[in-house]
């Protein structure tokens, strides 16, 4: 019998894949914009797992969480982009390897 809906594990695998892409992107990319996008990718991977669980268990909390995450992500995007602009203005670069003054 063909299931009438996509099983939960598919969503979770996709969510995990998206999150892993985000992590890898964060680790290997040097451009701050790209890293920033990787963070968004991770957040959305997690969001996907939230809504998948919410649909599976018929619980509304997961959906609500996603809204919260989106709000935080939007605020973070605003602040983060502002920081990136500030960094670019002072350092004239977006390469994170060169933004390493904060060390011993």
């Amino acid at each position: 019998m063909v299931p009438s809906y996509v099983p939960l594990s598919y969503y979770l695998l996709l969510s995990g894949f998206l999150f892993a892409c985000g992590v890898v992107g964060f680790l290997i990319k040097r451009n701050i914009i790209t890293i920033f996008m990787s963070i968004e990718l991770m957040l959305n991977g997690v969001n996907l797992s939230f809504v998948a669980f919410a649909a599976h268990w018929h619980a509304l909390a997961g959906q609500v969480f996603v809204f919260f995450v989106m709000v935080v992500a939007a605020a973070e995007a605003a602040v983060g982009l502002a920081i990136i602009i500030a960094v670019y203005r002072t350092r004239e670069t977006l390469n994170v390897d060169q933004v390493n003054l904060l060390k011993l």
Partner: protein
Amino acid sequence: MTANLNLWLIPILPLAGAAINGFFGRKSSRQAVTTVGLFFSGAALAWALLVVARVSSATLPYHEYLAQWIRSGSFSVDFAFYLDQLSLVMLLVVTGVGFLIHIYSVGYMWDDPSYYRFFSYLNLFMFFMLTLVLADNYLVMFIGWEGVGLASYLLIGFWFTKDSAASAGKKAFIVNRIGDFGFLIALFLLIKHFKSLNFDQVFQSVAPMGAETASAGLLTAIGILLMVGACGKSAQIPLYIWLPDAMEGPTPVSALIHAATMVTAGVYMVSRSHVVFERAPMALTVVAVIGTLTAFFAATIGIAQTDIKKVLAYSTVSQLGYMFMACGVGAFSAGIFHLMTHAFFKGLLFLAAGSVIHAVGGEQDMRKMGGLRSYIPWTFLTMSIATLAISGVPPLAGFWSKDEILCKAYQVSWVYWLIGLVTAFITSFYMFRLLYMTFFGDYRGVQADAHGSHGHDAHGHGEPHESPKVMLVPLMILAVLSLVGGLVGVGNRFEHFLAPVFESGNKFYPPLLDAAASAGPIENPGGNSMEYVLMGASVAVAFLGWYLAYLLYLRRPELPQKIADSLDGLYEAVVHKYYVDELYAAVFVKPLIDGSTRILWHGVDQDLIDAAVNDAGDGARHVSDELRHMQSGNLRSYAGWIAAGSAVVIAVMIWMWTGAR
């Protein structure tokens, strides 16, 4: 029963003086310090005299209970005082001589910047010494015993900026500790076997016990351990070495503590414990042998000393030996008699020596004195009296007491008597040597003319000058006491006075001499005739010593050097005090210092304790040094660490989840 004598006032008064001078003396004037110091020691003397006036032999012994101290089961120790004929004698000697020396110190110490400190210590000493002699039990006595040791330490090291004085103080303290160790063990034995430290109770338990003639037992052990304590305090072989060094202290201190009172505490303690000693002939023999040897040994060292105070120090050791000899042959009252007369004439000798030192500007070397007779006539007069007294010239104080000791010693064994007699000869010799070297001949010190015009505002200037009256009056009083002090012993009156103390224990047991005398040849003097022969012998040796000193140091002053040269090795040994200090240094002190340095300091302290602490610190630093590199400032490496950490956490969670099933 008698009225309350308030004995506690006698020690407390000097303590109050010590406290007042100690706390407020720094800011007070010298006059105020003097007033306080003299008032409180004088008040102690006055109260002691009042007590003497109010007691009679019928009311003694007198007990005074002050407060409970230790109570543990059936064992108890109280703060309590005890007065009998023995402590009465000690009380008068300590307060009397003590007060005189306080007066003398006013003159002697006037220019010292720490004048108030001196009087504070001196009063403190009086407090502890009076506690010692008035104690009702061994533990209160021990307070006084340790306290006088402390006061002695403080006063020897009074001029602590001088290295030799500071080390002399330490030496005295440490050597005394060795003796105190023996004393303490004796006290533990008393507690264990008699469940008490109270004199009356202990002696009542001891009295019925038989003498340990056949084999050494408990009483012998206690006696010998007490003697170890006495050896420390009273500077007997083998612990006498601290006393000569103690002469680093100011001269009044030498007179009060290291001649007249504190060093006699051992004799007092042994006499107080006579009930124990009488039942332990072996311990008595130990006491007698130590005393006799010390008397002789120290006297021989005294011959070759050139420091005026060192001569007197060895003389003190020697005279203390006499006292122990007396105790050792069972003649405790003779020992106490000599203790008293010795306090007079030796106190006087030291004070006079102080006056001499004062006169010649701090010089202590007799070779740089001489001819002082005409400069300081009063000092010369009083010192001559004291010299005659210590040499045993009748009818001065020393003659009576020394003669009595020798007589009693002869009754036990002629060996003690003979050594004692030879010692008396040597004593007479070195004392007159001191007298001749100091007061006769020509003045060999710095010539006065060189800086005569500067006046003698400070020590070391001008020609030798007589001391002020405040120093001379005590000298004269002590001189009178040295003249007539021995007369109380004529006709055995002193012995009879002390008889209630020394015969109390013998109600249950016949006198010890039966046991002790059987060891030696029994030659009890047939009445008075034997006594007169012995007396004649001691007078003869006294004059012989005098004559020899006269011959060598006045008539033929070049002769002593020749004799010394001809006796090269022996003379060297005597000058170096038989190398006893060097021997102790090699056998005890050096191994101790080496062991402490190598094992305890370098080994344990540096290599173990310090190393552990330092290595812990170093280790933390090294680890941090490595971990520091994690903080690279590289964003991607941080992210990597976070990712790796999360991965580990997830892995652990999965592992636990699957493991829990």
